[in-house]
């Protein structure tokens, strides 16, 4: 029996309960039933959500120092002097203050300041931070090994990532965490290679993308399944024939069978092979997800009407039917682009940062509603940060920047990494350009390692997920890569998988 027939049979058997559930949904009698989708006590479910800000977000205008103490924490004054016409505000009180952010030092680099605020349009993010559900990572970026001084960079005493400042390279390296290679698999894909076995039904990939093909979710044995933000069973797969054609059911079946046969043939040309593999997988997935989506409950969290919020709301819906999909581990990928603000920076940020803030807040709230807020960890990535200095009305490509990690299992309310000094003279051991480009202090490897350990990758499997990690970190009990995850509810996995360490 091939997979399609199998699914068809299961689909028929499950018909009764589907019909019942959908009619109850339409009657609004769902109070008792929504619990069905809530996290059952002890349910082993974990999801990670990667939000890509493609284009390179100016993250030193997302998280800013607010101190104005001369000879003390004078972060805001230094920020203002450096960013000139790109400064988001002329007074620090315009920023939304973060309560006691405990900005920490990292690998010998001290956090330059103690008082911080976020962009005035990010009240949702401020609230999540102050409630301990969101943390920042300061000056994180692509690294092959630690680079401690400008000298190590300038004289190539340490390995330098390929194509720093190039969009295509950096956006890829943030997704692969292998900056010395242009053909590495993605971090999410490699995690899925390790953990896919936890899922009982592999008809739908555990890696679900709202942004089509992407590097992050590509593994050796797992690739992404792409959906649209219109999560509706009627929006999956092939459209029906016009009703006036008659015999719709028969025609559809013939067509489906023919497509299955066409893409199921053996092809010797590698492009044809590649095309038919995607087509075959897609054809097999449509019915599984269609059936599952029929059981999405009513979700009361309100999402704003933006593309990012729409994508995140779609993820909430998919997570709500995780049991129907037979999945214990899922990885989601979203892209919210348009950050390459060489021009119109301040207005651009004013337009986009509230979208980010509101969408992430709504998404967090929806995971609370589903009872899985501690099971879902969301983080943001971007190509790179941008030059601190202005090009007139915008900023150019730089390197290390700031990002966010959100979820009930995050040790929120803190800034990890080490926020760099907003001064470009030799007192700043991170700066390597008159434009204000910073060597990252924290590597993407360390962030991903922390997430992977929480997600259930065993310490000995980390070398498959993160081939360069050994240059930064080695596991020991209670010694975590950065410390932003709370491991109380998530003991470190001891289940090892027979995948060899990767080397690039």
């Amino acid at each position, binding site marked *: 029996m091939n997979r399609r027939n199998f699914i068809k049979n299961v689909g028929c058997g499950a018909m009764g309960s589907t019909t019942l559930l959908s009619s109850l949904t339409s009657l609004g009698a769902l109070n008792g039933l929504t619990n069905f989708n809530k996290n059952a006590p002890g349910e082993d479910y974990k999801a990670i959500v990667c939000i890509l800000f493609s284009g390179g977000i100016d993250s030193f205008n997302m998280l800013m120092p607010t101190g104005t103490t001369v000879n003390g924490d004078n972060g805001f004054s230094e920020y203002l002097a450096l960013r000139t016409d790109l400064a988001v505000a002329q007074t620090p009180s315009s920023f939304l203050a973060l309560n006691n952010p405990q900005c920490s030092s990292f690998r010998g680099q001290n956090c330059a300041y103690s008082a911080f605020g976020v962009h005035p349009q990010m009240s949702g993010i401020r609230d999540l931070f102050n409630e301990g559900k969101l943390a920042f990572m300061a000056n994180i970026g692509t690294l092959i090994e630690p680079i401690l001084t400008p000298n190590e960079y300038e004289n190539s005493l340490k390995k330098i990532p390929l194509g720093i*400042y190039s969009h295509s390279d950096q956006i890829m390296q943030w997704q692969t965490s292998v900056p010395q290679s242009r053909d590495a698999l993605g971090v999410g894909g490699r995690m899925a290679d390790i953990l896919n076995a936890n899922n009982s039904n592999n008809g739908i990939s555990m890696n679900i993308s709202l942004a089509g093909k992407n590097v992050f979710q590509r593994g050796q044995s797992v690739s992404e399944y792409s959906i*649209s933000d219109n999560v509706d069973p009627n929006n999956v797969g092939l459209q029906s024939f016009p009703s006036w054609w008659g015999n719709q059911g028969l025609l559809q079946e013939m067509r489906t069978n*023919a497509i299955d046969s*066409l893409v199921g*043939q053996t092809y010797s*040309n*590698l*492009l044809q092979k590649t095309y038919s593999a*995607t*087509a075959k997988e897609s054809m097999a997935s449509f019915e599984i997800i269609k059936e599952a989506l029929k059981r999405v409950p009513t979700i009361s969290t309100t999402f704003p009407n933006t593309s990012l919020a729409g994508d995140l709301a779609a993820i909430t819906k998919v997570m709500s039917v995780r049991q129907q999909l037979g999945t214990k581990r899922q990885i989601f990928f979203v892209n919210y682009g348009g950050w390459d603000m060489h021009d119109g920076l301040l207005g651009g940020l004013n337009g986009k940062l509230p979208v980010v803030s509101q969408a992430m807040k709504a998404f967090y709230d929806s995971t609370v509603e589903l009872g899985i807020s501690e099971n879902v960890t969301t983080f943001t990535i971007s190509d790179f940060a941008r030059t601190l200095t202005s090009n007139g009305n915008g900023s150019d490509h730089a390197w290390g920047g700031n990002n966010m990690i959100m979820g009930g299992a995050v040790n929120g309310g803190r800034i990890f990494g080490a926020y760099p000094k907003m001064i470009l003279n030799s007192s700043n051991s991170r700066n390597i350009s008159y434009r204000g480009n910073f060597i990252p202090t924290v590597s993407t490897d360390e962030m991903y390692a922390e997430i992977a350990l929480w997600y259930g990758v065993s310490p000995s499997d980390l070398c498959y997920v993160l081939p360069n990690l050994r240059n930064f970190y080695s596991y020991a009990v209670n010694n975590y890569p950065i410390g932003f995850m709370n491991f109380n509810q998530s003991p470190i996995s001891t289940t090892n998988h027979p995948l060899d360490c990767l080397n690039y």
Partner: protein
Amino acid sequence: MKTIIIFTLVLGCFQSTFSQNTQTFGKGNIKGVTVNASSNASKGIKTLMSTGYIPNPKASSRFLSQATLGPKLSEILSLQNQGIEPWLDEQFAMNPNFNLQNYVQNMHQSMVDSLNLQNPAGNYTLNNVFIDDWAFDVAWFQANMVSMDKLRWRVSLALSEIFVTSRISAFENNPYALASYYDMLNKNAFGNYRSLIDSVTFHPAMAVYLTYMNNHATDTLAISASNQTKKKVFPDENYAREIMQLFSIGLFELNNNGTEKKDISGKSIPTYDNDDIGNLAKVFTGLSWSHSRYLGDNSNVNDWSYTKRLKFFPVDSSEKYTRWWANPNTWRIVNGHDPGPKTFLNQTIVARPVADGQLDIRDALDIIFNHPNVGPFMAKRLIQHLVSSNPSSEFIDRIATVFNDNGIGVRGDLKAVVRAILLDPEARDCCAEKENTAYGHLREPFLRYMNLINGLGLTNQNGVYRNVMVDLYDRIEQKPLNSPSVFNFYQPGYVPGGPLQAAGKVGPEFQMLNSLSFSNYMNALHKWIISNDPIQYRSIFNNEFYKSDQEPKFDISADYILAKDNRIKEFLDKYNLILAQGRIKAENMSIIQNVLVSMPITFDVNGVPDPTSADRRLRMGIFLIMIAPDYLINK
């Protein structure tokens, strides 16, 4: 005995090739090859000796699938008589005869005239009547329905995906910006690469897209006499980076055959570093709108501002205008264009007076143009777009050599490059795929649409079409000048997972293929061919009389007779030839045929099929052809 075995194998090869009726060219072995010679007998042998190409129907269709946006049956047949090289000569001799900007403006004017007729008190003019960006798509589609210079439109589409600008930008609603840029590509498609990058660089759409419009010299002087705080403004680096990374030389030094050069430790050698970028960024300073009064002037920008070549401002005299009321002695007059020498790519543009700064741009473009990477870089990209994703290094080498010198000492002759690509043995040779299992490319979604439009001969009575292509873009995420970023709809080095990755090959167009786009494509096909709704018409002004003729449907009634069980194979063969260049294999043809013959059909007393049921059979057939993997990969 040995000889006989080899002979048998060779014969077997020809037979199997032959059974699919595919011609083998230029392999030095002319045994068993049939040639459709036309005008004179010498053409046949010329073909066999690889000095001239007279193709059979499949080879003709295959050539046109590379050199045009999809053939019509009549074009396939006519090329067979004409031969490939005369066709190329004819195409190269045609001047661009369809001006998109004029078409947009005429459409705009007719909107204005109609509105004034409706409401004479309205005082409508081109300046106060909004015209949407889809006017560009209407013009583009019209051009492709009526223009004879098919090769130029194929090449300009490829150029639009290399020298990318996009309406996903500050000019999202401006059809004039798009039309003007595309006209520029058409004009330069068969010209010289050096002129092309000059035209690209000085086009306002590119200047806005890659943010060097009003790009200012380094400014670290005091803000004013009364405020001694120093400015900290540096040139925008965006264009400096992308013109090198994406439009000319790429990230690593290349051999002439497209492979990356290696240093002594075996590592690829970067073409430039961030200092080169900083220096080249200084070159692209001082450019503003043609109507600007000063560098930084963004006033009075309208739709037509995007159609006029940029103007150079050596000095930033903005305070003459923005502080006109102040004492001229307090005006802050600073450099608009960066002074001093600029070193990049190991060459230095010497210091010259800023008044002559525009010469810096000329010199910089010369330096880029003469970099040895440009030949292999452009060769590979154009081959990938027209022929195959993974050309051999020999193929790239041959084309790069033509780029370097067209034979009469001219570098950058794109006409010679396009001709060489299309006539190259690796493009023409049907058997290249036997040696290279990654031969060909995935047809990009928009090309599939144009294949269908052309292949089914969509037409109407008066030859005017109105296709806004908005729904099409929502479904297939591709149409001209609508890329999500400067990195195009897909990147040339994209490696899809699976067998291509394992073989170390790329599949650029696969970046657009996923489970969602796969079903979206099938449902788009469903709309175009099953629901017979290939064109999206919109009114251009309120209460416009609906011009149904401008929204034609596919008429396949001439083929109804082929819907009979015993003739359905003829029908499928015909569309296999037109749409898939005859490449759909026999097993797949039977799968499709089996579906069609199991669809009900009735006949009248004369044995003529009932039109409705015949129509459905044929539409289902075309739909399935266009989903077959051997259609989707054009090889």
